[in-house]
């Protein structure tokens, strides 16, 4: 190199990579600086509480008119009933946000800037996943805990339940974990598909459509297939007691979902490295 180029270079700053901490900071700035993401999470929290009150109140009011089987299900798993009334909504929001966190970079062209900053690419995706999943974990735990604390006094009019009962705390905290794993699942799909509409369709399809279809499969095989689907398996952690026909325990279920997610993340990472951006 000539003397002039040496004059404008700063070699010490270039030899070491900035480190994963710097990438986490960078991704956190990206997430917090897009207002719609934060508002979606706030809305998710608020709506979940609203739906918990509505559904549990309705369940209690119609208690005497309900089918005996339905009453038995609620009696067996009051915690799952409370959490489930809000989760149906929260999880869709998490699916959409998880896809968007990646696909918005592609649709806006930001991805080029991101990849110029981190040309090895995979650490960028890893940092994005870590930051987003952590954020969802915090929001998810808060949402689940509040939802339980609001729903429990209402449902106690018919079924006794408390945070100290066996399996309850695990189910409530597990609900936040489930949402965090789901956020990574959606993020991985977004990174593989790279288009917002397609990504959301795929994730929502996997969550809402495939499970009822697997229900139609006959016999034990159908039960196992359905039980191993990512969100079906993952949601077992939110049950206070195992339901009849469950093929996995609560932690096994979450483990199966985490495995699905890990596979998708690996595929996403390999494709990110290989594809032209």
């Amino acid at each position: 190199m000539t003397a002039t180029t040496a004059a404008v270079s700063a070699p010490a700053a270039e030899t070491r990579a900035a480190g994963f901490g710097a990438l986490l900071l960078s991704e956190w700035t990206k997430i917090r600086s897009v207002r719609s993401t934060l508002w979606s999470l706030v809305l998710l929290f608020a709506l979940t509480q609203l739906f918990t009150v509505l559904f549990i109140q309705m369940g209690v009011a119609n208690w005497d008119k309900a089918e005996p089987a339905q009453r038995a299900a609620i009696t067996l798993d009051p915690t799952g009933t409370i959490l489930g009334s809000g989760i149906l909504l929260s999880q869709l929001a998490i699916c959409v946000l998880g896809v968007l966190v990646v696909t918005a970079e592609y649709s806006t062209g930001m991805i080029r800037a991101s990849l110029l900053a981190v040309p090895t690419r995979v650490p960028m995706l890893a940092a994005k996943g870590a930051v987003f999943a952590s954020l969802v974990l915090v929001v998810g735990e808060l949402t689940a805990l509040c939802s339980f604390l609001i729903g429990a006094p209402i449902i106690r009019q018919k079924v006794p339940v408390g945070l100290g009962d066996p399996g309850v705390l695990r189910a409530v905290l597990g609900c936040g974990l489930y949402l965090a794993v789901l956020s990574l699942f959606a993020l991985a799909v977004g990174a593989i598909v790279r288009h917002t509409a397609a990504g959301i369709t795929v994730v929502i399809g996997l969550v809402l459509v495939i499970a009822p279809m697997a229900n139609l499969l006959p016999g034990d095989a159908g039960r196992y297939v359905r039980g191993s689907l990512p969100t079906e398996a993952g949601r077992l952690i939110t049950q206070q007691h195992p339901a009849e026909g469950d093929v996995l325990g609560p932690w096994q279920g979450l483990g199966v979902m985490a495995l699905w997610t890990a596979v998708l993340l690996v595929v996403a990472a390999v494709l990110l490295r290989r594809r032209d951006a």
Partner: protein
Amino acid sequence: MIEVRNLTKRYGGKTAVEDLSFTVEPGRVTGFLGPNGAGKSTTMRLLLGLDRPDGGDAVIDGRRYRDLPRPMRVVGALLEARAFHPGRSAYDHLLCLAQSQGLGRRRVEEVLEQVGLADAARRRAGGFSLGMAQRLGIAAALLGDPRVLILDEPLNGLDPEGIVWIRNLMKGLAAEGRTVFVSSHLMNEMAVTADHLIVIGRGRLVADCSTEEFIERGAGRVIVVRTPDRDRLAALLRAEGAVVTETDADELEVAGLQAPRVSELAAAAGLVLHELAPRRGSLEDAFMESTKDLVEHGADATATGGAK
């Protein structure tokens, strides 16, 4: 310094860049020219590791872009103006990029000041005009105080003031010993800004020389002569082997003869000259001339190029 060696890239069956080799030296502005679809943007994307080459490689100061630990501190790039999330402020856009390179908020404020966006920094970048978006892109390129700059069409959407600003910025960066590699469609602007030119057509190198040499070779040098005895002078000059064009009732354009010789011939014949002015051709003319074949036969040549 940028070195491109035997670079080849195909998209599907179409060859975008073929066996392209050139070097971009530090300390001067190097213009990157070529007709639409010549492979300029592709070459820049390959340089920056966004696309993978099918053959050859491109290195910056001896290393591939992918191998640079903090790339933005070595190379600053502007590829497209709107490479940001419209919902994010200019400040936050630059901040997240700075943080990934281990740079702080002070550097973000410095570049915002430098590109004249300090007042708009907290506004959502989605509302920016094309000119402001272009300035934000330049700010991102300058963030790491890089010694190599790769700018794809930085003049797009800029008003005359912005164009002069970029011209001075690029010249200043080159004068500091940095490598400045810039593509543009604005020939007049490149003629005054670029010291050196890399011209490509259909993915191949057409010219790699100084701007002056390129113009001289492509557009040549003509002499404009004004004289009341136009026809007599024209005959005299043609006899000397010059190529003469009658451009007006009293005006000639002369190629292939030096101005002193024209003057001597006129004086010997007792002809009066009102004007004798050497005129340099334009970069535009030179560019048209050198890429003429590439554009004219664009369609069928692409087919044979792709079949290779």
